[in-house]
């Protein structure tokens, strides 16, 4: 029996080597691919994953189908652990959000991105500082001054989740300006925007797509974008402004930047040609008109990368998260 197995394995190795020599598309999925979403239905990562599923099906980019599965328990730990445990399984991929870093750091969950194989970065999600349009604050500086004047914890900052991107960004904003906000974790991005319209909170750090409708309707005002360059989209969103017209926070006098990774990972121990297949697949996805439109609608930062460059970026970003979370006292205490 062992003998047979060895022969089969050897044959497989030989085949895969020769296969690689013959053509670049050496490997492709032989059964449906599970697309793990470490977040609930309806959120940003979920939307993106389902859009990708739709694009792949519509443009026939893959012979097998892509099946999104939400594994959101424990701030996404469920999903990441499932991928970590599926060693060598090329029929499983995962889309990440900032909980790739925050969940292991805040909860002490036993995984890190090093337990997975990086495939590629799809885009970076932007964050914008918003206030209600009826407030007098025209610039980020004015708002921060007002927050300082009101005293610590007086200005309410609404965000999604706890010890995740919105709160970490709030902390780094506090660090840069020396103010203190009263951070309130609310249900979802759309909910946060509406609470700001209703003046139940004073500001938010919503993603563009979460607040665009209210901005266009004239009820919210963007103050600055938390990135080192302005958003490139010059199509007018309101009568007078485009995404490009929003200054960066550094320009506005509150030097803070933060972007959120939207990237793809695979389980550990997969072969390079299997990774290459997905790198290539997502390259094709990014070239479709549907994707481009989605990027523009959501004012995403369209930076994308793969391979070593991607891994280096992830490592740098992980350090940034660790530093910010350490300062905020969000790190999990080591288990006794």
């Amino acid at each position, binding site marked *: 029996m062992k003998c047979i197995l060895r022969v089969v394995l050897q044959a497989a190795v030989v085949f895969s080597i020769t296969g690689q020599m013959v053509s670049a598309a050496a490997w492709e999925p032989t059964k449906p691919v599970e697309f793990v979403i470490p977040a609930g*239905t*309806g959120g940003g990562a*979920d*939307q993106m994953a*389902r*859009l990708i*599923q*739709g*694009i792949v*099906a*519509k443009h026939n980019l893959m012979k097998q189908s892509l099946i*999104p*599965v*939400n*594994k959101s*328990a*424990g*701030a996404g*730990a*469920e999903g990441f*652990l499932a991928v970590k445990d599926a060693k060598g399984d090329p029929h499983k991929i995962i889309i990440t959000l900032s909980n790739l870093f925050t969940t292991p750091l*805040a*909860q002490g969950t036993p995984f890190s991105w090093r337990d997975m194989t990086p495939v590629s970065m799809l885009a970076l999600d932007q964050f914008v500082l918003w206030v209600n349009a009826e407030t007098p604050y025209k610039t980020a500086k004015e708002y921060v001054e007002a927050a300082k004047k009101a005293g610590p*914890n007086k200005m*309410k900052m609404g965000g999604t*989740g*706890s*010890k*995740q991107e919105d709160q970490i960004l709030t902390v780094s904003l506090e660090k840069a300006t020396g103010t203190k906000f*009263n951070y*309130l*974790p*609310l*249900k*979802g991005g*759309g*909910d946060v*925007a*509406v*609470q700001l*319209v*209703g003046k*139940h*909170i004073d500001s938010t750090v919503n993603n563009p*797509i979460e607040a*665009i*409708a*209210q901005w*266009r*309707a004239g*009820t919210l005002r963007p103050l600055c974008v938390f990135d080192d360059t302005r958003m490139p989209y010059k199509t007018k969103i309101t009568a007078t402004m485009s995404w490009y017209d929003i200054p960066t926070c550094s320009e506005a006098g509150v030097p803070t930047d933060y972007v959120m990774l939207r990237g793809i990972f695979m389980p550990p121990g997969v072969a390079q040609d299997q990774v290459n297949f997905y790198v290539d697949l997502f390259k094709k996805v990014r070239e479709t008109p*549907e994707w481009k*439109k*989605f990027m523009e*609608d959501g004012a995403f930062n369209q930076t994308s990368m793969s391979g070593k460059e991607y891994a280096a970026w992830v490592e740098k970003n992980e350090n940034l998260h660790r530093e910010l979370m350490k300062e905020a006292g969000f790190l999990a205490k080591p288990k006794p």
Partner: protein
Amino acid sequence: MEEINALFHGFSVALSPFNLMLMFIGVILGVIIGVLPGLGGANGIAILLPLTFTMPPTSAIIMLSCIYWGALFGGAITSILFNIPGEPWSVATTFDGYPMAQQGRAGEALTAAFTSSFIGAFVAVVMITFLAPLIAKFALKFGSPEFFSVYFLTFCSFIGMGKGSPWKTLAAMMFGFALASVGMDSMTGQQRLNFGSMELVRGFDFLIAVIGLFGIGEILISMEEGLSFSGSSARIDPKVVIATWKKLPKYWMTSLRSCLVGCWMGITPGGATPASFMSYGLAKRMSRDGEKFGTGQVEGVIAPETAAHAAGTSALLPMLSLGIPGSPTAAVLLGGLLIWGLQPGPLLFVEKKDFVWGLIASMYLGNIAGLIIVLTCVPLFAAILRIPFSIIAPVIIVICVIGAYTVHSAIFEVWLMLAFGVIGYVFKKLDYPMAPMVLALVLGKGAEDSFRNAIKGSQGDFSVFFANGLVGSIMTLGLVMLLWPLVNKLRGKA
């Protein structure tokens, strides 16, 4: 009368043969999704969403919203026939629907459920048609203290319902709260009460608990009682629909009240599940036959079904006009809108008239299509009960297991569901009421989050719950509801 013109334009969009076909397909798929416990409207739509990317947005939303209507209708079927709620909002339907089926009145219960669902949805749609802009503004007034006050009112309108010991009711409710707190602390992001188990981080999903408590628990009880299935005497009579309809107008007051509760909860956005519980609680308290609730009263089916549908339908309004989903299913639909390149929000009504009014018209048509489909099937559904218990019981168990597995695609949940089955059996044997526990489990988390956010926002000041007229009056109403039985008792003694 601009709305009327717009609506008729909408009808012309929705009435194309292609869209009509999608409508019927959607309703049938929805009914199937609603019948299978665990699959649920949100999951069902999420699975089918990518299929619609190739369609024009209006056709796609028509089909998906019809799945939503179908699921709302379908949820009632298993609740009444087998005591297994297919959807969270049909839990309250089991309280009187299942006893009716046991008495051989399954056809009557189903007809009442479907008809009231239709009425609830219809009233909500009419409201959306004419009052959309006004209502959207009202929803903006809801912050965390207001949300908590709504939860508070729901709990209070449900207290004092049980016929048995009030202490047992309280114990059951506290058990529900304890279960609801397992998993993640959403304020601090820490895991809690999971004893280091990754499986328990997911918390106790409401559907798992309900499938076990009601479905498996019921089977255990039936087995003990000697494998008889009391609904087997159900007569198949196509005229049952007409006969039931003749009785329904008598309950117009319950319907009206339930519609109001439902619409209000859908907009605020409390959602269909609390709406159905609140409406059932109110109906029990205000009906002349309130004492008999739980033994198979038609009113006990009408109240939750009407409210659930009114809420489910009006939940789409905050989604379209503000971009906040009023229910998990609406959240998935919202994702769909974004993918089709539509921006939900205040300007959607201005910029995408075809789409919005096509959708509203399809709400009218979809509900009519749904009603026709489910009503014609009433005798068929009722006939299921004639199958001997020894055949149907294994089928129910298989459905329960599949349902429990589908919720999170995890085998652990199946074991959990079976454990809940045993708990359900024990509860029944010891005469503890299950409703307060289920209510606490489904609403506990939301109540906790809104309470803690409100208190954190006010920096520990409890007066925030009486800070303005809106939150103050809801809280006061809740307190009145809470103390009502006590007042009644004192008055009786004096």
